[in-house]
């Protein structure tokens, strides 16, 4: 039987910070925090923690606002990998796989799942490094295809609609002042010139008023 892996998150009362625990016990250093256990769909717990840590170096949480950590980027990535995208359901995967000039795009055989699995190994004992050490480890692989993918997915997980598991508590959209989907900007599109117009942030779920099925959830 497949072992169930969980990523334990705890949403704390202190500015909705989510904290990833490093052991099986819920991280309980922050009081009142309601721990949330999120079942992982593809990554192992350790892999998820490495993804989370690496994403947090790409978009760190700091005085310029929340980052990959608060947005739950690791959850987004886990779901994408578990879904059709992760196994290349929509990519042309007929043989032969050959190398070509860079402009012809990724020509490898490995699926996103395999690329992550291998790529995470190349990061070694990432979780035991301090921030500077983690940055160095990422710098070493920053020209790799895995890194390009991780960076892209980190951005996706930061700014996706929350139905995909990322952009938790709308951390990403609030960070950049993006209001989410809106039926109408008719009265505002040619106004507010030169000043920021930041309507209340809404999600697709709120706008549609019913449950939605993102593509990673195959039915």
């Amino acid at each position, binding site marked *: 039987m497949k072992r169930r892996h969980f990523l334990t998150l705890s949403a704390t009362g202190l500015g909705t910070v989510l904290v990833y625990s490093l052991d099986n016990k819920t991280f309980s250093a922050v009081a009142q925090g309601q721990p949330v256990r999120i079942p992982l769909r593809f990554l192992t717990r350790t892999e998820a923690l490495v993804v989370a840590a690496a994403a947090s170096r*790409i*978009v*760190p949480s*700091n005085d*310029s*606002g929340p980052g990959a950590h608060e947005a739950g980027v690791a959850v987004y990535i886990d779901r994408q990998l578990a879904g059709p*995208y992760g196994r*290349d359901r*929509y*990519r*042309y*995967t*007929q043989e032969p796989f*050959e190398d*070509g*000039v*860079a*402009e*012809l*795009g*990724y*020509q490898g055989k490995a699926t996103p799942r395999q690329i992550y699995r291998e790529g995470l190994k190349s990061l070694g004992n990432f979780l035991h490094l301090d921030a500077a050490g983690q*940055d160095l480890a*990422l710098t070493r692989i*920053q020209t790799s295809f895995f890194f390009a993918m991780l*960076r892209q997915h980190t*951005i*996706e997980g*930061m*700014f*996706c*609609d929350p*139905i995909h598991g990322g952009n938790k508590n709308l951390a990403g*959209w609030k*960070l*950049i*002042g*993006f*209001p989410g*989907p*809106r*039926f*109408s*900007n*008719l009265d*505002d*599109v*040619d106004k*507010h*010139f*030169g*000043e*920021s*117009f930041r309507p209340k942030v809404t999600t*697709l779920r709120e*706008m*549609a008023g*019913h449950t939605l099925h*993102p*593509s990673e959830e195959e039915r």
Partner: protein
Amino acid sequence: MKTLPAVDVVIVGGGWAGLLMAKELGVRTALSVVVLERGGATKTADYADDMDEVDYAIRLHMMQDASKETATLRHNHSERALPLRQFACFQPGTGVGGTGEHWAGVSPRALPDCFEILSSTTKKYGKARLPEDHSMQDWGVTYDEMEPYYAGAEAMMGISGKAGNLRGQRMEGGNIFEGWRSAEYPTPPTKIPYYPHLFREATRSLGYHPHPIPSATISQAYTNPDGVSRPGCTYCGYCERFGCMIGAKAQPSNTLLPVIERHKNVSIRTGAEVRRIVHEKTGQLGQAKGVQYRNAAGEEFFQPAALVFLSSWTLNNTRLLLLSGAGDAYDPATGKGTIGKNLTHQVTFAAAMAFFKQPLNRFMGSGAAGIRVSDLDGDLLDHSTLPFLRGGFFSAESLTSRPIGNFGIVPPSVKATWGAEWKKASVDYYDRTAKIGFSGEHLAYRGNCMDLDPTYRDHCGDPLLRLTLDWHDNERQMAKFMSAKALEMARAMGATEVSPAGELRNYDTRIYQSTHLQGGTIMGASPEQSVVNPFLQHWQFSNLFVLGGSTFPQNPAVNCTLTILALTLRSADAVVNRYLKNPGALA
């Protein structure tokens, strides 16, 4: 293979061109018409909650499934072509409505001299000025002949815009360089968001003639000549790569389908993937007998028909003719043959990025609301002393302003591409960055062409189409010149930092350029030089017509769809008024 009851007309592909022909024949004749569409039915109700960047703009939910069928590409004839394993540089659609369901709606007319590019360029600059390896051609149709059909296509979609040349009279505020038009646009220009507004002010101060982009995302409610009504756009910003939730963007599903559904003589069969045009040939001439297709369950059918229209977009129009041996394949070595010839792709790139101190509120807008500068298009510049021929236009648009696609674009002073410094700049500049786009004409060259790939196959086992495509010196020089102009415009807008376009090197399949890929079954005045005549009728098979950008001999700078629709209307007129009365060659 099962043979089905014969019909009068079979149309291969239910996108913009195919459904427009189906509608015309449905309304104007009593012929039995069957549209075979490989994808599924379109449920416009789905568009009510499609505003999801991940599924639609990144995972390309509405696009062709590359795992089943793609194309291969190489830069030149000595390279080995490899498959486009994921669509990026262009993004064909599937399902009823085709790519027309998720397009942006930018709908300008081509400049009059585009249709006579070879003769007008030769006349003005002499033969010696043409690139040595060009294969440019006139279209065999003139702008004057196209004008009523342009007007018809605009009326069908309710295009919003401002005339710049009304029956020869110059109209300030419109595109004063456009060809004459018989009537004003059906609806007034769209609202102009802040960033295009800045662009308009700045380019005007530089002496250009900015004008609102002609737009199928319409500015107000409109009822077209077929009696189909649509509401005005609400500038939701989830436009290109998405279907419009209210039907304000003209899509086949909200302009043509409602009419088709009223006509019992037209039916649409979905999940029907056409694999061959079945034909009989004696000598050089022949007749199409119908088409062979496969349904979703994998069963093969022969659908006999008296008249066949191919409208499966540029790549499959070309591939199906090659697979079926319906005409002579082009050989770039000898220049003989015509199918696969003159592959072109609009030269589109970010000519300059502009970084501002003030926020731009870019989340508001539509696929086509914006401002364009056409002063350097076509042959408006004197090219005598310039290192390139022809030109293009600049635009400031509101499209693609969604967060995933735009986070991380930072001014050149920021060197980091990840980490704290980059994140801070990315957050700061997220809503203070915009691009000046440039789209230029792509000339046709002998070596840029298509044939069947010797190695890679589709899910049915048929060879994929192989594209041999690269930029040449003309495009590279044009890009360099135009980028410099765009930088001046960006500075005039008050940008605090600007970043130039990189050099145009080799054709890059990793970056979205546009879905304006043309050629392969080109039109023209002679059967030696082209596949179809100026009415889009196959020179060798008088009951086979090819609709779409595959018939463009080369790529005008403008977005192609309005011209595709105008050519389709012209072909429909010729079929209804002449061919049906007297079947045979129309030219």
